[in-house]
């Protein structure tokens, strides 16, 4: 609420990017690629948290998470709590993350998405849901970290050219 006076523009850009991330997240992939599917929604969300921490926060993360749960048909709240978790960390880290070199950013993303996957795994186990038998579920954090520079550059270009404040 510190920015009450400031004009908030370009909300549609954020919405469109999130919807695109949703689509990328459910688009059918071959089986061997499926475990490598990056966490598109989490990546886009982290970008917007770092770029616009005064607009994108925990409530946005929760709404996106609920939508993702419905989209996946997973337990309602599973992705929501995971996204809230990483959004909280990103909100605490955003000033540092803006200063990081790309490599440092990638490593941070690796840790963030990795902890998100672990949290999801933990909740799935606790609620006796379907759980993977091996550690392949953390693989998506690696692909997410590798794709982070691309997402970052694209979204930054988009944000600047469309003047999202």
């Amino acid at each position: 609420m510190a920015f009450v006076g400031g004009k908030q523009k370009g909300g549609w850009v954020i919405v469109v990017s999130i919807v695109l991330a949703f689509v990328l997240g459910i688009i059918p992939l071959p089986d061997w690629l499926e475990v490598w599917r990056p966490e598109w929604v989490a990546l886009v969300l982290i970008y917007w948290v770092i770029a616009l921490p005064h607009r994108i926060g925990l409530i946005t993360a929760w709404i996106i998470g609920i939508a993702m749960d419905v989209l996946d048909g997973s337990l309602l709240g599973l992705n929501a709590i995971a996204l809230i978790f990483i959004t909280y960390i990103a909100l605490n880290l955003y000033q540092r993350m803006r200063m990081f070199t790309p490599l440092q950013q990638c490593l941070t993303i690796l840790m963030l998405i990795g902890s998100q996957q672990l949290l999801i795994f933990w909740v799935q186990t606790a609620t006796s849901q379907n759980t993977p038998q091996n550690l392949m579920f953390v693989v998506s954090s690696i692909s997410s970290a590798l794709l982070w520079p691309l997402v970052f550059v694209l979204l930054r270009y988009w944000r600047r050219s469309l003047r999202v404040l």
Partner: protein
Amino acid sequence: MFADSRFNYLSQLRYYVTLVITPVHYLAELPGQGVSAMGSLFQTRHQLQTENVRLQEQILLQQYQLQKLEHLTVENRRLNELLQASSIVDERVVRTQLIGESSDPFTKRVLINKGESEGVYVGQPVLDAYGLMGQVVEVAPLTSWVLLITDPQSATPVQINRNGIRAIAAGTSDNLHLLTLNNMPNTADIQVGDVLVTSGLGQRFPEGYPVGVVNSISNDPGQPFSGVVVAPAAQIDRSRNLLLVFENRTSVSLADATNAEIVLEPAQASVETPAPAPEVTATAQPVDPVLNQEPASVLPDSAARAVVDVTQITPLQAVPQESTTATSELTTSSSAILSQPLTEAEILLQDGGAD
């Protein structure tokens, strides 16, 4: 927040959010549809003609098979009436299309484009042209989620077509394309190539649909059970056109139901017992027994509760409202029947022991 896993409060919320979010699935489908539309746009006249000829031949062949089938159906119904079978299952199928897949690589769920508005219900069997695909586990206004039979959380009551041995085909988390038969004794008469069909005992899948073919059998003397791997008959990963089965049970002369006939057709007889029994089975529909797991963990949402309901309604409450001629024998036998869906696993074990 995780009330969803244990209770039903949030199903309404999920229902409405689904309504809003469904277009995203269609959006994700667009590229693939575009490609196939381009493909059909550039088909040559010759290709279409050859395809037409091939399809006409296929229709001819299938018409011929259909003629025989109609005769067999009538004959089967007559024989069933002779046996005084309690019900005749009249099935109607509705075509549906697959529009999405769960992005979780460790589950096997697909989204279909028919929902509550078309009368889809939780527990409804889904087929493709080759065999059983799975069952509906979640219904939204316009779409529904289908749990495929190869999902580790799914278990299908089956029987071997050749000799009628019953078993439970469950998905495994090691390989999401195959099924395994749980707790198959080492001495069971089962061979590679045996065709498995649904046994209808779980009261969820209708009887007689092909489930799979036995792929390999491993007998390890150190293990209590043999490992039987089954390849699903349905094209689990390829089919886009699916069939939803609507069951329509019509009862046949049950007024003078005898004890013996109930025992003859246990799975269906319990549906037809008067008074509260139909309710019981209506809620009991979703039961797919899995040996190693508690029922609640096998079934999603409402289904999990339904199981609890069944166990709470004791058969003794249900039976006295039946005909007054009910003897103590009848009570005991029907109590066995009512609890059957839950204890099919035990029956399976007994069967195995007998072999």
